[in-house]
Structures are given as structure tokens and as C-alpha cells.
């Protein structure tokens, strides 16, 4: 079973307490600490880094890739930041604000595309907007070797609920046209299989909850496991430790026994896995 590290902003995670949150956020706001996490990840066998990209993470990963060959999986667009803008700028205003922050070459590349889609974008078309935002973020990435791209789960779940299959189809097609593999992150893999049918195979990796307690596995554990078991080579486990209630070693064993393609570790799980390998002192500094 392969391993990936989830390097999404630590501000976007849940913690046991406010003080634990501050420890993680403060620590992993530092580029050198992100590098430390990446080195720890390599030491425990992680081969890919999965991240909702912001400037801080992107810069740290770009430096890290200078001397280490870990692949990067980008989750786009950064919906947490986008939703903050939505409350006072509106959908079009928030998207335009992002566009205007692009460097000129990226602006030209995504602007040409936007012109082709002007009608749907002006109508706040969901798929056109999601794809444009995704394309803008990918275009803004400079010098980072990204080899897999995932649609942000907040868009994925909405699109699944609305059975907006064209968004997934087009997302996968555009990823391929950029020489990237498309992936899917969802807490609703059973719905994804139902909605996407044969299109599911367009996604090289599907990241979905899988743990020994059935936590967050909807609609229920047995239905989820039946799906994951039928596509073992495609599924990667997230929510691996069931919110920290299962030891990482146990959680990893469960994933291996289940025969999944891989598992995505959060920073807390990474630290525990690293401690288990007896190479580091305990806890965040």
C-alpha cells in the first residue's frame, strides 16, 4: 500500500482543542517545518504530497522538490479561501479577484479560456465556474511539479448531489490535456460510483474514508467496503485513524489487509507513524 501526506492548510483541519490547533497551525506555517514534515513523510514511506495549495505550501513544496523527488497532488480550487471571499464579493466578484491576482502569462492562458466560456461564466454556471477556478489555480502554480489533480471535495460533494457528471468528465479531460492524472476526493464514494458509473475509471485515484471503525463511511460501512473492495487498485483511504481514535499502526494494517491502493496520512498521523518508527521525539514542538 502506497502512502501520501495530506499537506492541506492546518487551519482547515479539526483538532481536539484550541491549543492543539494553535500548535499545529503555528508549526506548519513555517516553510522549514513543512520541509521537516516532508522528510518525516519520506522516512515512513510516503511517495506523494497532497495539498490544497496556498502560497505558503506551494513555496515550501517547490523548494522541497529541488532536492527530493516526491510527487505533488494538487486539490483545486482552494474553496476555503474562495468561500471567505464569496460572503462579500459574490461569486463573480470572488472569481474575478482571483483572476486579477494572476501573473500576466497565467492571466492570458486562463483569460483566453474564460472568453470561450464567457456566456456560462456570466450566468454563474457551476461547472464552468469550478473549472475556471481550478484552471486559474493550476496556472498560478509556478515551478512545482504536479502530477495528479483533484477537484476540491466541497465542489465534488455538491456536484455528486446534483449529479453534475459533466463537471467530472470535463475535469478529467482537462487534467489529461495538461498531462496530469485526475483524482477524486469524496466522503460519498458510493454516490460517486452511482453517479459516474463507467466514468469512475477516468480517475486514477479516489480518496475516500476507510478505517476499522467505519467512521465517516457513508451510507454505511458495509456498502462502502463493498465498493472499495471491488476497486482496490483505485481507492486510497482517508479518515484512516477515525478522527484519531485508532492508532496509526492499526489503521495502516487495516488498509493493507483491505488491499487498498494507498492511504493518505494527516500531519498528526504522520507524526505518530514517525514516532512508531522510533526515529523522532514525540509531539509537535
Amino acid at each position, binding site marked *: 500500500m502506497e502512502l501520501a501526506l495530506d499537506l492541506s492548510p492546518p487551519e482547515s483541519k479539526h483538532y481536539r482543542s484550541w491549543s492543539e490547533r494553535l500548535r499545529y497551525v503555528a508549526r506548519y506555517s513555517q516553510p522549514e517545518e513543512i520541509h521537516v514534515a516532508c522528510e518525516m513523510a519520506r522516512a515512513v514511506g510516503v511517495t506523494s504530497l497532497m495539498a490544497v495549495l496556498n502560497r505558503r505550501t506551494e513555496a515550501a513544496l517547490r523548494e522541497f522538490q529541488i532536492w527530493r523527488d516526491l510527487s505533488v497532488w494538487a486539490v483545486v480550487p482552494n474553496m476555503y479561501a474562495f468561500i471567505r471571499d464569496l460572503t462579500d464579493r459574490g461569486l463573480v466578484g470572488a472569481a474575478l479577484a482571483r483572476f486579477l491576482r494572476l501573473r500576466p502569462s497565467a492571466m492570458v492562458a486562463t483569460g483566453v479560456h474564460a472568453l470561450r466560456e464567457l456566456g456560462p461564466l456570466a450566468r454563474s454556471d457551476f461547472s464552468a465556474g469550478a473549472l475556471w477556478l481550478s484552471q486559474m489555480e493550476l496556472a498560478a502554480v509556478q515551478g512545482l511539479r504536479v502530477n495528479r489533480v483533484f477537484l476540491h471535495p466541497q465542489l465534488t460533494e455538491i456536484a455528486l*448531489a446534483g449529479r453534475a457528471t459533466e463537471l467530472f468528465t470535463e475535469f478529467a479531460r482537462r487534467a489529461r490535456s495538461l498531462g496530469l492524472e485526475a483524482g477524486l476526493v469524496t466522503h460519498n464514494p458510493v454516490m460517486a460510483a452511482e453517479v459516474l458509473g463507467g466514468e469512475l475509471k477516468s480517475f486514477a485515484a479516489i480518496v475516500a474514508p476507510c478505517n476499522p471503525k467505519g467512521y465517516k463511511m457513508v451510507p454505511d460501512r458495509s456498502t462502502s467496503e463493498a465498493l472499495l473492495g471491488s476497486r482496490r487498485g483505485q481507492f486510497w483511504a482517508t479518515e484512516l485513524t477515525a478522527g484519531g481514535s485508532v492508532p496509526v499502526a492499526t489503521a495502516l494494517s487495516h488498509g493493507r489487509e483491505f488491499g487498498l491502493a494507498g492511504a493518505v496520512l494527516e500531519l498528526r498521523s504522520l507524526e505518530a507513524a514517525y514516532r512508531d518508527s522510533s526515529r523522532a521525539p514525540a509531539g509537535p514542538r
Partner: protein
Amino acid sequence: MADPRPLRCAVIGAGRMGMVHGHLLQVYPGTELVGFADPQSGAHERLASQGLRAPVFREVPELLAAAQPEAVFICTPTHTHLAVTRECLVRPVHLFMEKPVATSVADADTILTLAREHRVMHAAGYVYAHLPIVEEARRLLAEGVLGEILRFSAHAYISEVFGPKSGWFFQRELSGGGVVANMGSHVLFILGWMFGRIRRVMATTRSHASTVEDSAHALLWFEGGVTGMLDTSWSMPGAQMLDYGITIDGRQGTLVLGREQILLHLLRPMGDHPEGWSEIHASDLPADTAFDISPHIGGEAFYRQLRVFETACRTSVLPFCSLDEAANTQRMIEGIYASAASGQPVEVA
């Protein structure tokens, strides 16, 4: 025998929350999304592009006449809730109201009175109360695990406002207030559900980024004798989603409610709970959600909230999240603003 027909539901207001409820109504097996009402041009195309296939009407009366809903989800800006309620109750439709239910206690009370007069079921969208771990904490308190409850401290923080903001959400007369009404109210609702009616409030608020209050400290006295403090801010770095917690002290122990776990410290064993520290994790509670519309914000609580409302509509038994309970929350909100303005404790009738 339960009515096998899906409950016909309509959504009024096609903004962010209207969209979320619309999707859930389509996915949830016990409901049918029969229409939207939204005055904005292009709403139909925008919603259809997300797969929200119900017809869209510009006005509420058109929606009611054409779609014949049995229940409506009111997701318009807060200051319109009372007027929309009046428009809806020309016929007996059950009401689900996004939070906060009103910009004042007077409006919240009028909405509640109207709902009672028309004998419809009603609920408010304080979604975090539907998280299994929150329900479990409330159950433990109701069971008396802590004995007599004495005091609490609570927080609700998010990183959202760090400078001037525009839009209706940041105008007090339209949204009902700032962080207290729109974020802290989630925790105020849970506190009211746990401890009962509010009696007195002493608070300070500050506007340091936007034109509404961006942070607040509130001392709350409940009628049952429980007292405690809420600290809330939407200008706190480090939390992209609402981070909340409640620590409750009783004569027989302490309960610490977090996002995914309850820490319990008991002075003596109580039922299945041992003396000393123990933990109840959300993963130990029964799973009962068929679709997770927003795994990182609210999570399964949205689905569970809908089930509670649907059950109420079918059984004619008011849910715990009724507008009665929301009116108590509104009293806390208004009490906090009144106390902050006067610098004095405020008795809440």
C-alpha cells in the same frame, strides 16, 4: 403507518444555504424538492447548472401556488424572514428557517406566534446541534451524569473577517449583527438547549475589523441557575472552519465537548461511565447518515437536521430545534447587544 410519499419541500432564497438545502432535499429519500423562489434573474440557470432541477419562481406566492409545497426552507437574508413567513403562511406549510431566525426578538416571537397560529411544524437551522457528539453531550447532561450543573465556559472562533467587508451579511440591520448573531449563535443555541431559558446577560463586544461586532465576551445566567461565559470571534487566525468547544462543570464531574470527542471526568462512577477521565469519541456513536454534503463544515449534521425536520412534519411533534428554542437563542443575542451597548447586565424576559 408512515406516509410513504416524499414530503414536498421548496426552498426560498437560492444563495449558499438555499443551495445546500436544495441538494439535500434532492438526495434525502423522504423529501422531494418541488421548487425554488428567488427574485434574481438567472437563478434558474445557476441552480440547474448544479443539478438542482426544480422549477424556480421569482415570487413566493407563485411558488406556493404552482409547486404546492408541504414545507418551505427559508434561506433569504435574515431581515426578510418575517415577511417571507407571512407570505408562506397564507397556507399551512411547515417552516424551516435558516439561522439566525430574525434580526430582533420581536420578529422572532412574531414568526413563532404565526407558526403556532397556523399549527405548522417549525425548525431553525442551528446545524451543529445535530452533530452526534453534541447530541450525546446533551443526552449525558439530561441523564444527570454531572449531577447539578454549575457553570460552563465556551468558545466559538473562526478566521473570516480581518478587514472591512461589504454585503448584507455585514450590515446589522440586514443580518441581525456580526459574529454573535451569525457564528456565536451556533453555540448559544446549544447552550440554551442544554441549560434552558436565558435570564440575564452581561457582555462586551468590539468592532475591530468590520462595521458589525467582530468579537464578544458574554456572561450568561440561565433560569436553572447555570452560569458561564462565551468568547467568540470571527477574526481569530488559525481556523478556516468554526472551532467551538464547551466545558461544563457539575457537582459530580466535568464534561468537555469538542468537535469529535467528549472528555468526561467523574468524581464517582455513573452508569457505564467510570470514575476519573474517560473519552467518548464520535466514531463510537452510531452512524446514520446516507450522504455527507459538507464533510468539513457541518458534516453529517446537515443530513440529520433534515431527518429531524422531516420526522416532525410527519409526526406533528415539534423537534428540539424548533423556533421556540431558536427564540431563546434570539434572546441571548439581543441581550448581548443590549448589555454591550449599555455596559450593564441585562435581564432577559
